[in-house]
């Protein structure tokens, strides 16, 4: 039932559940799987090279032509290293956790439309692994599961530091998941469908003009971008790992393949979430035809590359947030902001009067919230947390 639902949107199954249709699905899965792995290797090198240039240095340039094989060399090195399992670790969960992270990162790409509908002989199929009715919710599901990888990894290490790191990480991810879900709901409201193919189709027609990034004054795009960056713990929200000052987090007890899988999952998440951003806000494969043909995948790749560059640029520029700043941004700004946005958009979908009413209500709520935050801050400064702890 679930399987049938998952592929019901695929026109390859218009002629029934034939072997050829399944073959198309399998080929698509394999292509996406392999392409994502290649993209990860590319992304690691792209990041190191671009960060190097942004910091006025060449980046790695020794391994292979101009250093582009450095990521492969690093991967090989990690692979042949000794796998250390702490004696206090829960061995099964310890080995399982990186895989959970990796699968959660990979699975999101299934719903990303890379292009339109393509014909292969009698069969036509979407350039998209699956177009299930629950669509974009898969992304929220996957990022929810991703938290388990981090949490279980830290817990199963059987050591207190990974546990502390895991708690820090999962608190961050759970906090931003709320804002993420609310902004995704806003986009779904704007489009009227959970299908990613429908979300992309709604942005078609008129390059740039119909893209969701310009709808609702760009607020959903901005909120989603911040939330998703925090969700996948990219800089400036990377205090989950924070090599420089915290010397790691949930993954400190991991070495060799386990560490590599976590690392890999992180970069897969960057790519899939960039792809989701392209899908939701940049029109997916939408773009002008070149020489009369629809070159959707090309536009998609270009937009993906721009997104990846922005992530690298952010990493090269922004200092890491403090933990309280991170939580403030998540709970006091992003969640109320995206909630208000959802209400305003929902109201505006009914009529402009409802929209204005929601806007007025939101402004009122924000004034109250600002007051509440001020009161809370004054209280904290008066009898702050530290003085409370010191009290006998």
């Amino acid at each position, binding site marked *: 039932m679930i399987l049938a639902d998952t592929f019901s949107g695929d026109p390859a199954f218009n002629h029934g559940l034939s072997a050829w249709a399944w073959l198309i699905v399998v080929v698509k899965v394999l292509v996406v799987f392999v392409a994502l792995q290649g993209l990860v290797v590319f992304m690691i090198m792209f990041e190191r090279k671009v960060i190097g240039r*942004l910091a*006025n*240095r*060449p980046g790695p*340039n020794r391994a292979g032509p101009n250093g582009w094989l450095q990521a492969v060399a690093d991967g090989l090195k990690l692979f042949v290293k000794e796998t250390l399992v702490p004696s206090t670790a829960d061995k099964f969960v310890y080995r399982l956790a990186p895989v959970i992270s990796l699968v959660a990162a990979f699975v999101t790409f299934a719903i990303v439309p890379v292009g339109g509908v393509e014909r292969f002989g009698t069969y036509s199929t979407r350039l998209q692994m699956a177009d299930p009715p629950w669509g974009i919710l898969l992304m929220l599901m996957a990022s929810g599961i991703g938290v388990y990888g981090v949490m279980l990894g830290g817990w199963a290490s059987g050591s207190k530091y990974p546990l502390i790191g895991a708690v820090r990480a999962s608190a961050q991810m759970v906090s931003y998941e709320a804002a993420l879900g609310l902004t995704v709901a806003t986009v779904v409201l704007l489009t009227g469908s959970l299908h990613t193919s429908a979300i992309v189709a709604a942005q078609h027609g008129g390059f740039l003009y119909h893209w969701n990034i310009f709808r609702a004054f760009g607020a959903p795009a901005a909120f989603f971008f911040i939330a998703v960056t925090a969700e996948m713990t990219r800089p400036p929200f990377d205090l989950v790992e924070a090599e420089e000052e915290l010397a790691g987090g949930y993954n400190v007890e991991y070495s060799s393949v386990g560490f590599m899988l976590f690392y890999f999952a992180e970069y897969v998440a960057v790519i899939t979430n960039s792809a989701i951003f392209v899908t939701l806000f940049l029109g997916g494969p939408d773009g002008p035809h070149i020489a009369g043909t629809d070159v959707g995948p090309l536009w998609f790749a270009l937009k993906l590359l721009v997104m990846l560059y922005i992530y690298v*640029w*952010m990493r*090269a*520029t922004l200092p890491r947030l403090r933990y309280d700043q991170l939580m403030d941004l998540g709970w006091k700004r992003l969640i109320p902001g995206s909630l208000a946005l959802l209400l305003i958009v929902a109201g505006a979908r009914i009529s402009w009067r409802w929209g204005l009413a929601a806007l007025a209500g939101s402004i009122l709520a924000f004034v109250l919230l600002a007051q509440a935050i001020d009161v809370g801050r004054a209280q904290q400064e008066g009898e702050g947390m530290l003085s409370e702890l010191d009290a006998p």
Partner: protein
Amino acid sequence: MSLITNNKFVNFFKGFAVTGKQPAKPMITVQYPEFKRPKPERSHGRHVLNRYEDGMEKCIGCELCAGVCPARCIFVRGADNPPDNPVSPGERYGFVYEINYLRCIHCDMCVEACPTEAITESKLFEFSFTNREDAIYTKSELVVDDAGKPKVMPWEDWKPGDDKNTSAWVRATAPSGRADLEGVPLWSGELGYGVRPAQAGQSDAASPEYSADFDISMRDAESAELRGAGVSAERNVRPGGPS
């Protein structure tokens, strides 16, 4: 106006402009093993034992270097010069001379202690030996050859021109510290080089040879090839030397 120029939100994106502009600037990285920046004239490296212009060794075996060495890495034994074939001008010469580079800290105190300028330091620091025997340089390895050039061990990475500054450690200033002796060579000549010219004095601020800010001056002096291909060497040149 200040609302725009000093706005938190605007400043946030100004930060992106700062990093975004970097790729347009030349890289300051020097591709090290292939290209090397010129070394400072007074950097301390592997020692050499110098010889006079007539080929005589300068070392007289006085062991002052060994006495002053804080790391106790120098071992010297002097012996009387054979009358028919003297090694050094004078009564005695360095019969045994060993420096243990596992201990040497390159403080240059031996060079300062030496009464005859026999031991000086070259600028060579790239000599990674792989066993303890190689670490101990004996006299035959330290004394310059008949052309006055330092002997090159297989594990040493000399580049052309590195032997130029093997000696004359006080070339910029007067040995006595007297200003009127600045620029006057008060040191003996060497095999293959003669009396090395005096550096411009340290009171000569305009001299490019003397710079308190070596990095800046070297950066200006370096050509693009030091940084690899396709990078121009245009940098801000600090005017007027050290301030």
